[in-house]
């Protein structure tokens, strides 16, 4: 067997490979190769073998895995410009993918529902999904339920795999390994939808945290990867109102998440990740300012922009506001405790100097990254100037939330149980109303609903509930969606919703709740 053939057969091909039907045909025994190295080896070989023009990653873990691999010490050599998120296919121009060699990558697959959705979407975009010359699917680990390929409208699409025919126990174990790898690599926040800037804490950490609490409410906790995390939440007070002129008419900017996550990347280096997703009216063109249009491009502000594209674009715009708040607080209250490192150009980042935000192109295909860098630099400059004028002035720091990690993690499980229970009850009610049990997807709770659960059940303030969100997202037990909701009155809003991540997690939570009951309400 020559080398080319050998490499062909290292990785099985769906239902017709050399090892078809085998329980496991891997070249390494289970668990002998570290998971990150194994995934790297798998993906690298797929790229070498297939030589794709584009990689499409399945959100969200698939993207986080790719980013962990691209930002590791021994990175996968690939350009972010040639990566597309599964969430943005509908935003691409017709024909943008047809004729290209596409590699779809996901870390794990159980039933293949998301993959099937993606393949259907690609077919709509003129991609011949059944053609082995144009499309290859590579899934690192495949559950036995879909090890024979994924059926799309009557055609079985085979996939390359590293492990397959996994039973539920092995699949769950492997999932845990991947999540742990991600937590050690920098948490699930290694996604491609949030902007981030890096700061170095050169002074006192406590003063730094106190500065974050100047107008925000902050909770510090340690993630499973032993990284320090800070969740800073901004309330709907007068200082943190989002200007309605920034967004499409009818955008809902209250009772949403407005926060900044501060995640330790390495040593004293932290990433500031502002997060804000206002709920926007569905099917409504965004007549925005020229600068926003230049920043986000036609996939967000054009007439052909989709609800999902607009939603994320509005989110990025809102995040820039949050970035201003966090930097202003830091410069006002702890200007000597940190230094800011601004993102550089993609080319410089690739050469190893500093970091860049090129990965955002995966979620925002028409984003002008250079323009974003300039915008961030302007915010930083202005925040520094505003901060210096505010030094020594009120408002006072908000009190620290006195909850230990152990309590936070315990409550996070409780919150997940409550979310899962609420959703199950909604589904059951829907069944009895319509006598139909096909659950729509996505099907989650809005941030407002989750905050209500936190307040009613845990007597928790919003920042604690928001921290619990972050813990659950880092554990990959909670997943976010963009969901068309009912909204108030007759306006249909596109909202961010949250639900337990997939069947494995949902089932584990259900079993846990059945066995141990729902958590006690805190008096």
């Amino acid at each position, binding site marked *: 067997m020559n080398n080319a053939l050998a490499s062909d057969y290292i990785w099985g091909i769906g239902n017709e490979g050399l090892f078809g039907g085998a329980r496991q045909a891997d070249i390494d025994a289970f668990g002998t190769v570290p998971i990150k190295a194994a995934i790297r080896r798998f993906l690298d070989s797929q790229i070498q073998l297939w030589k794709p023009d584009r990689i499409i990653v399945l959100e969200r873990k698939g993207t986080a895995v790719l980013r962990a691999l691209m930002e590791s010490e021994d990175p996968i050599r690939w350009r972010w410009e040639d990566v597309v998120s599964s969430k943005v296919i509908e935003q691409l121009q017709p024909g943008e993918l047809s004729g290209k060699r596409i590699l779809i990558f996901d870390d794990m697959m159980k039933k293949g529902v998301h993959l099937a959705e993606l393949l259907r979407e690609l077919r709509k975009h003129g991609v011949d999904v059944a053609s082995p010359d144009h499309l290859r699917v590579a899934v690192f680990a495949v559950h036995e339920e879909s090890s024979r390929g994924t059926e799309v409208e009557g055609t079985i699409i085979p996939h390359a795999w590293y492990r397959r025919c996994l039973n539920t126990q092995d699949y769950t174990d492997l999932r845990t390994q991947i999540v742990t790898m991600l937590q050690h690599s920098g948490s699930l926040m290694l996604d491609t939808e949030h902007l981030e800037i890096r700061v170095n804490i050169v002074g006192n950490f406590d003063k730094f945290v106190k500065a974050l609490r100047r107008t925000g409410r902050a909770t510090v906790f340690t993630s499973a990867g032993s990284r320090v995390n800070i969740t800073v939440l901004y309330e709907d007070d007068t200082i943190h109102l989002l200007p309605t002129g920034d967004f499409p008419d009818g955008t809902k900017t209250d009772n949403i998440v407005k926060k900044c996550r501060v995640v330790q990347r390495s040593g004293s280096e932290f990433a500031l990740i502002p997060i804000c997703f206002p709920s926007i009216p569905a099917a409504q063109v965004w007549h925005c300012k020229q600068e926003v249009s230049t920043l986000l491009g036609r996939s967000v502000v054009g007439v052909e922009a989709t609800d999902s594209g607009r939603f994320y674009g509005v989110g990025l715009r809102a995040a820039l506001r949050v970035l201003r708040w966090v930097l202003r607080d830091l410069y006002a209250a702890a200007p000597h405790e940190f230094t800011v490192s601004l993102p550089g150009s993609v080319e410089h980042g690739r050469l190893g100097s500093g970091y860049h935000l090129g990965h955002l192109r995966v979620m925002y295909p028409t984003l002008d990254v250079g323009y974003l860098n300039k915008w961030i630099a302007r915010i930083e400059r202005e925040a520094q100037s505003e901060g210096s004028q505010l030094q020594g002035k009120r408002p006072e720091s908000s009190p620290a939330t006195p909850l230990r990690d152990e309590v936070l993690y*315990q409550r996070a*499980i409780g919150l997940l149980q409550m979310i899962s*229970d609420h959703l*199950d*009850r909604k*589904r*059951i*009610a829907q*069944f*009895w*109303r319509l006598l139909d*049990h096909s*659950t729509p997807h996505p099907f989650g709770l809005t941030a407002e609903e989750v905050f209500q659960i936190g307040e009613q059940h845990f007597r928790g303030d919003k920042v604690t509930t928001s921290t619990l969100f972050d813990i659950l997202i880092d554990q990959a037990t909670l997943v976010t969606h963009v969901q068309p909701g009912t909204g108030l009155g007759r306006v249909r809003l596109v909202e961010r919703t949250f639900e337990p991540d997939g*069947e494995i997690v*949902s*089932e584990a939570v*259900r079993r846990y709740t*059945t*066995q*141990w*009951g729902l*958590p*006690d309400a805190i008096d």
Partner: protein
Amino acid sequence: MQCERSLRALSYIFHGWAQYTGKRKFHFGKPDNRVLPIIEFEKLALFWCRLWQNLWRIDGARDERAHATRPKMDTQKLITFPPPFVIERAKHGKRPQRYDGIEKPVTLAEILCGLQDLGIRYFDIHPFVEAGTAYPNHYKTEVHPTLPPERRSQLLEGFSGAEVKCLDDIDNVVRRLGTSEIRALGTHEDLQETMRDIELEFDVIVTDLVPLAVSRIANGQPFLDVAQDILEYADEAYKKSCADRKEDYESAYGLFLNDTKDALVRAAFSRSQVEASAIFDSAQMNAVALRAEQARAVGKVLAAVAYFRDHSDERSQPRSSKAREMKHAWDEGISGFGKHNILGFPSELDGVYVGSSSQLRPAIRDRFLEVLSGFHR
């Protein structure tokens, strides 16, 4: 194990009730033949689940949550399992169910029938059968005892001392409850939940049924099916809000509170149920009861008009039992209209239609549309 134990505990309580030979409250129209119709049986299960959930919350062996190890305490003195059912609303009110997120929710009645088919008989279920198909959820399904009295105690094998004590205390009271009392205790727990149950009945009427009825009437189409649905939901809302329930609930509540000896059971009961006056005597409930009564009257008149629209030959002389039932519904509905000052309808059915045709008189049709559009949550 948890599900198996719950079913055994429930079987123990049910057999205690079924094998009791003393007197208990008589339920009009339903002889006390030691058999529970499925609806009352599920109400018993609901009541037990609520009570057991609270026993578990108060004194459950729950330290595993924090430490992920086996409980170190003496579990003989504790409740060792919570009930395994999701207590959620079904078509009318709550039912114990299991749900896996993939298939449809499965009711307790379906679970027990399924187990019976596998030869596992905690109860002797007699499902309603039609055309060779069993319908466990049908209201004519019955639950019979399956064990002789001397073997009943075997059901509690492996239970902790505390669990046995609690179950004996619950059994001592439940066995003396009549079926109507069991139903009242299972259906109602507090004002908020009862109000929510009633709201949901109205919700279906207003959101789904009224628009359909309006469109059918306006277009001169048959509307018997939707009228009967409106009557069904209005009737449920009426029953839940009706003060007639108060008496059953009050006697059951009093018996439980007076005759339970175990402090733990009493504490759990106080958490599970509130006293009758807190549910039935509130201004909120009185207002909703009035609305439900009106809706029921509308449902009755609407159903009768829809029926005799399609059966004009029976208008003056109802021959079938269904026609007599509908004539009775008309009389009751019209009397309800008078009571609630809903005017503009004739006192006799003949005044509703154009001659012997199936067409409604325009004035009556418009008045119906007006009354229906006045429905609100």
